[in-house]
């Protein structure tokens, strides 16, 4: 089968950028197909800066920005945003905090003014803080019923123990109650608009008027403390170990299995991406899906993913299977990984992976938020805008040898952390054959 000519031969949307007098970098991308606008103010400081014992502080702060300004109460602000048919969200992830407004392009100035007001004039009303905290706590209580979320969070928490990534970005039922509104305000003042912050505007708007408006209206002379290099040292490896979280009411187990991967800017990231398409990320083209779903019928879905982060993110194989097949499923996953590492990918698999990653590349620029996401990822992870242009060509040159090397260097079946949420007593003894087992409630 031939996948034909370079199906990725498409032009990236023009990404204009400017550093305004205040030092802020602004990206603008014109997309005139629909009368819409997506605005993103990105602060390069996120949950990694949560002080010890204060998990969830930066995320709480992000949402507090949207709950009242010096000009408007939370209700007035919500009415203003909804009245424009817009959506407003603020959240922090590991390496960044983002303030996002999506609305109609006819309201550009109104939306931009709101964005500035929300970020630069937050009021931190104490009553809003207490209500928000109670909402977050109630949501965390409810999440204890979601076995997928429990599996994801426990996996990352244990994998990154004793690093800045060892807590859920939303905080925990222990960390949230004692947090104070004043701590939010102090966190905000310390890290307000640090070096490396930037603005992304995508939509039905020309770049030049956008730049002019931002230059004329963006406050200058504000710069908070930078987080610093924040060197990340991965915890030492400790062999295969299993954490079984007992949920006797479940009939199906949620399984997470993996280890710490490599940073997005690592030179082996792209060979790993192509290799992992074949192993676990390529849907029905992946080895894991072929074996675990199509051949064995153990699950509806299985996927291996390497999360792109500034520092090394998790490499995770995620699936679920009925209680009875839980251990067999994990054994088969190991078997697929080891076989893949021994025999490597075939020429055909390499070709197909490359054609998928390059051919589907234009679809990663279809919506305004996707375009913004591409820009903020390369900016935050230090890849440079040119990464977006060279990606298809670079991917197409990756060889079988590079992929094999990447698998040897960065896949570690002998160091897997396994987290299972399910009827632990039914398969505990089986898992003991793999290494130490820890039971958790």
């Amino acid at each position, binding site marked *: *089968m031939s996948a034909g000519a370079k199906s990725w031969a498409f032009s990236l949307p023009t990404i204009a950028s400017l550093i305004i007098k205040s030092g802020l970098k602004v990206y603008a991308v014109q997309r005139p197909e629909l009368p819409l606008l997506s605005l993103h103010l990105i602060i390069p400081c996120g949950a990694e800066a949560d002080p010890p014992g204060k998990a969830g502080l930066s995320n709480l702060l992000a949402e507090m920005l949207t709950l009242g300004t010096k000009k408007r109460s939370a209700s007035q602000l*919500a009415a203003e945003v909804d009245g424009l048919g817009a959506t407003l969200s603020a959240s922090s992830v590991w390496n960044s905090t983002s303030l996002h407004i999506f609305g109609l392009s006819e309201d550009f100035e109104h939306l931009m003014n709101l964005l500035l007001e929300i970020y630069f004039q937050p009021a931190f009303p104490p009553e809003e803080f207490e*209500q928000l905290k109670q909402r977050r706590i109630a949501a965390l209580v409810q999440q*204890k*019923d979601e076995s997928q979320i429990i599996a994801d969070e426990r996996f990352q928490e244990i994998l990154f123990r004793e690093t800045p990534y060892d807590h859920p970005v939303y905080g925990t039922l222990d960390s949230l109650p004692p947090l104070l509104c004043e701590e939010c305000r102090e966190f905000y003042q310390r890290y307000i608009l640090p070096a490396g912050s930037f603005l992304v505007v995508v939509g039905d708007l020309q770049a030049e008027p956008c730049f002019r408006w931002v230059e004329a209206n963006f406050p200058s002379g504000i710069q908070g403390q930078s987080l610093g290099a924040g060197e990340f040292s991965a915890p030492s490896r400790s062999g295969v170990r299993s954490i079984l979280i007992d949920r006797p009411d479940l009939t199906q187990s949620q399984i997470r299995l993996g280890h710490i991967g490599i940073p997005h800017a690592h030179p082996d990231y792209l060979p790993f991406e192509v290799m992992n398409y074949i192993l676990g990320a390529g849907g029905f083209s992946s080895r894991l899906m072929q074996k675990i779903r199509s051949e064995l019928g153990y699950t509806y879905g299985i996927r291996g993913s390497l999360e792109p982060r500034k520092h090394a993110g998790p490499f995770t194989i995620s699936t679920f299977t*009925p209680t009875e097949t839980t251990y067999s499923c994990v054994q088969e996953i190991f078997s697929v990984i080891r076989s893949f590492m021994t025999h490597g990918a075939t020429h055909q698999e390499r070709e197909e992976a490359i054609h998928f990653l390059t*051919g589907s590349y234009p679809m990663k620029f279809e919506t305004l938020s996707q375009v913004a996401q591409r820009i903020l990822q390369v900016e935050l992870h230090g890849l440079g805008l040119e990464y977006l242009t060279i990606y298809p060509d670079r991917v197409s040159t990756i060889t079988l040898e590079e992929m094999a090397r990447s698998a040897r260097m960065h896949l570690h079946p002998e160091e897997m952390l396994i987290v299972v949420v399910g009827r632990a007593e039914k398969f505990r003894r089986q898992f003991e054959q793999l290494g130490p087992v820890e039971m958790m409630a």
Partner: protein
Amino acid sequence: MTVVRSSASIGKSEVRGLPEFIEHRLANGLRVLVGEVHSLPVVSYQVHFAAGSRYERPGITGITHLFEHMMFKGTKELGPEEFSRIIQANGGTLNAFTTTDNTSYYENLPAAKLELAVRLEADRLENLRLTPESLEPEREVVRSERKLRSVNSPFGLLIEQLFALAYEQHPYRWPVIGWDPDLRNLTLEDCREYYRVHYSPPNAVVVVVGDVAADEVLRTVEKYYGHMASQPLPRLTIPKEKSQRGEKRAIFKKVSQVAAFFAAFHVPGITHPDLIPLQILCAVLSAGRSSRFFEKFEKPGKAVEVRAEMGYPPFFTMDPGLLQIYAIASPSISLDTLEREVWEEVEILGQELLSPEELLKVKKQSRSYFLQSLETMFFKGLLAGLYQVRAGDFRLLHTILPSYEAVNPDDVTRVARKYLRPENRTVVSLQPVSQREHEELGEVE
């Protein structure tokens, strides 16, 4: 060849980003809709069948969805899952979904690869290979999917119970994924029969949206589907649901951290003019942080979540559907109190007219959300395909935005009084129990 332009009967679409669809019917009855959009060199190829769980009968519930899975298991030429592998190897993404009213297959891929998608979709419409070896693992895959979506999800079984109680006769009373005993018993012969009856050219709509030339697309579709024989449309009698004449209630007990209730009101099907005012009503109650439910329940921490929803275009149901209102209680409030307060809030809609400002707000929200949904080729295609399958006319998609604009405060009050009556209401409450009680109640499946 008869070609009809979508806007011919109702005036040209004013909406930027919504293409003008061209319609063509092959001699065998296959309907083709093509929308040219040249913003990116990609195309969405979709085949929508008038096959959903509404066409099933007791004993074979879930066959529509299981059969959707079987469509990936190979043809006379292709091995199992080879369809997916080939599309992906050509830069495409693909999937399928089954609902109460339609089963839809799609490939989003580089525009230059369109013919490949047409050829492969036509091949599996004609030459699907159904074998016991492919059915058995797929049956277990679907049972695993059922466990994921229903049995082990916090509210999945509760919602199944809600539909089973609200409907007494219509097939919407069983879940799209089917009941587990039926999934265990479905046979290869059931699958063959389903394929024979429902998978035919006149029972399908092909939609193509993207960087293509319409005349070339029509030639390609003709090339791969033109030789297929027509066949009569399935003759099925779908039982009509009778009017509900009093509130129905049930309790569902399971291990849970929270108490909750899920309620449903019968509302009309997709072509009825009351649906848009009802959608506006849902937005008044729960769209955004200035909505009534957020202000009254979520903001002060009485509830984790309170929502009113009944789908959005094009996902309104073909036959009379359900407007759902659900609330997940915070530990600080009893479920009875929360439910009483929610109904008090809903009653206000039937008693007091919306202010012009509030109506203006929800109209702008509805317009903005609709425009946002048009960002992808895929969704543009869904709009046309599902309006054709569910409402019988894809041109209705052009009426959505004008319909939002036409809603006035009286419409909202009227539909609130007409549909959100206690007599038309079904409520299922989630009552948390201990693990021991949970086990005493028997295994869930």
